[in-house]
C-alpha cells in the first residue's frame, strides 16, 4: 500500500499523506505558483523527480533525495543543437523545433535508467539519476518519426513509456499522434507497431495508419507485462502482446472517450478509465463524474460513482491524472477543476481529498 500521493498541478506539487487514522491530508507543497507537469518517486532509489514548465523560462527538472524537503536543479533534457542549415517541419509544414516544450513521461526502470518523454517528441534517457540525459537518437532519427503530429499539444508528444518490469530493455512508448513504438534492445532500435488501432479523425485511407494513431495513454500490467491497455482518442484498446497489436473495446460505459487509464498491478483484466463526452466538449457524460472499471478484460464495465459528484460536475481528468498503487486497492484521480478523489477499495467508493486544488495535471502514488 502506498501512503503518499504526489499531485502535480498548474500551480505546484502537492503531497498528500495518509495518517495512521486513515485520513489523507496535504503534507507538503513544493513549487507553489509554478506549473508541474509530472512527478515521479522512484522507490528503488528514494529519489523524487519533478518536471516543471515555467511559462517564461522553459522546462526544468528538479530532484529531491529527501522526499521533497529540498530540491536540486538538474539540467533538464534538451535537444542537441540543430545542425546548421537543417530544417525540420511537421507534416503540416510548420517548423518542428528541436526544443523540449514539456516533460510528459517520467519512468524509472528496474535497471536504474530514467526515461523521459517530452512534448515535441524527444525521448531521453538518463543513467545517472537525472544528472545527464541523452536524446534517444535511433528513435529521433527514424524516418517514421517525421510522420508524427500534435494531438493535445501543438507538437508530437511522448506521454507514455512502458518499461517491461523484468526485461527493462523491452520498451513500448505511446505518442500523440504517432502510434506505439517498440524497442527490444534498450532503445538502440525501434519499430512502429500499433496494429488494430484506428483513427476516425483521419481520412478513410489513413484510418488504419499505425504511425498516426493517437493513444492518449498506455499502461502495462506489472504482473502480466504482455497486457497493455490504451485509452485512445477513438476509444479503448487492449493488447495481449506488449502493445504490438490491439483489440478495440467497444462497450465502455458511459463513454469510450477519455484520457486516463490505470491497470491493476497484479490482475491484467482489471483496469479503470475516467470517461468523458467525445470529443470537442470533453466534460463528464451528463455532468456526472464516474470511473469505469472492468474486471474481465473489457468484456464488461461497471460505472463507479459512490462518493463522486453526480450533478453539475464538469471535471475533466487528464491522461496522467489517474493512478493505482501497488496493492491495486488505492486509486486516485484529479481533475482540471481542482478536485482530487481517492478510493481505498479499488473504486467501489471514493472520498474527495480536495475540491480546491489548482488544475491537476498528474497524480502518482509515491
Amino acid at each position: 500500500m502506498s501512503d503518499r500521493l504526489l499531485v502535480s498541478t498548474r500551480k505546484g506539487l502537492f503531497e498528500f499523506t495518509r495518517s495512521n487514522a486513515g485520513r489523507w491530508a496535504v503534507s507538503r507543497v513544493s513549487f507553489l505558483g509554478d506549473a508541474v507537469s509530472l512527478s515521479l518517486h522512484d522507490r528503488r532509489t528514494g529519489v523524487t523527480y519533478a518536471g516543471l514548465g515555467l511559462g517564461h523560462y522553459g522546462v526544468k527538472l528538479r530532484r529531491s533525495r529527501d522526499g521533497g524537503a529540498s530540491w536540486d536543479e538538474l539540467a533538464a533534457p534538451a535537444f542537441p543543437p540543430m545542425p546548421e542549415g537543417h530544417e525540420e517541419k511537421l507534416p503540416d509544414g510548420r517548423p518542428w523545433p528541436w526544443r523540449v516544450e514539456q516533460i510528459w513521461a517520467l519512468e524509472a526502470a528496474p535497471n536504474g535508467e530514467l526515461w523521459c518523454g517530452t512534448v515535441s517528441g524527444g525521448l531521453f534517457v538518463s543513467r545517472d539519476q537525472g544528472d545527464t540525459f541523452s536524446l534517444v537518437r535511433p528513435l529521433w532519427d527514424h524516418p517514421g518519426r517525421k510522420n508524427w503530429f500534435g494531438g493535445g499539444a501543438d507538437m508530437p508528444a511522448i506521454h507514455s513509456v512502458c518499461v517491461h518490469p523484468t526485461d527493462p530493455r523491452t520498451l513500448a512508448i505511446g505518442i500523440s499522434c504517432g502510434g506505439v513504438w517498440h524497442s527490444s534492445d534498450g532503445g538502440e532500435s525501434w519499430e512502429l507497431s500499433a496494429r488494430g488501432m484506428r483513427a476516425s479523425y483521419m481520412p478513410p485511407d489513413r484510418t488504419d495508419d499505425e504511425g498516426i494513431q493517437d493513444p492518449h495513454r498506455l499502461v502495462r500490467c506489472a504482473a502480466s507485462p504482455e497486457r497493455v491497455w490504451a485509452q485512445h482518442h477513438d476509444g479503448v484498446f487492449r493488447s495481449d502482446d506488449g502493445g504490438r497489436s490491439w483489440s478495440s473495446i467497444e462497450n465502455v460505459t458511459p463513454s469510450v472517450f477519455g484520457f486516463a487509464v490505470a491497470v491493476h498491478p497484479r490482475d491484467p483484466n482489471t483496469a479503470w478509465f475516467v470517461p468523458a463526452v467525445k470529443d470537442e466538449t470533453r466534460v463528464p457524460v451528463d455532468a456526472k463524474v464516474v470511473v469505469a472499471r472492468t474486471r474481465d478484460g473489457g468484456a464488461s464495465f461497471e460505472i463507479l460513482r459512490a462518493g463522486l459528484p453526480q450533478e453539475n460536475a464538469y471535471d475533466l481528468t487528464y491522461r496522467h491524472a489517474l493512478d493505482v498503487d501497488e496493492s491495486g486497492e488505492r486509486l486516485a484521480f484529479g481533475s482540471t477543476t481542482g478536485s482530487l478523489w481517492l478510493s481505498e477499495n479499488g473504486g467501489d467508493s471514493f472520498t474527495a481529498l480536495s475540491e480546491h486544488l489548482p488544475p491537476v495535471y498528474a497524480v502518482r502514488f509515491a
Partner: protein
Amino acid sequence: MARVTFTKNLERHVACPSEDVPGATLRAVLDGYFERHPLVRSYVLDEQSELRRHVVLFVDGRQVAERKGFTQAVRGDSEVYVMQALSGG
C-alpha cells in the same frame, strides 16, 4: 563592462545577481555572464541558443530585435536588461 540585470521575477527560480561583464557584443556579454552562472542560461535561452519565447532583452533602453546570435554591439557602459515578456504572463 556592460551591466547585466535580470527581472526580479527570475530570482525566485535561480540566483542571477546584477554583474558587470566584459564584451563588445551582446552575445559576448551574455556568454560571459552564463559562464559565471551556468544555470541561468537555460532560463534565458533554449537549447538552440534562441531567446525563450517570453523573454525580452533591452540594451540601453531599446528592445533587442534579434532572437538568436545577438551580434549587436554594446558599449562599455551599456545596460543590458533581461526581462519577462508580457506575452507570457
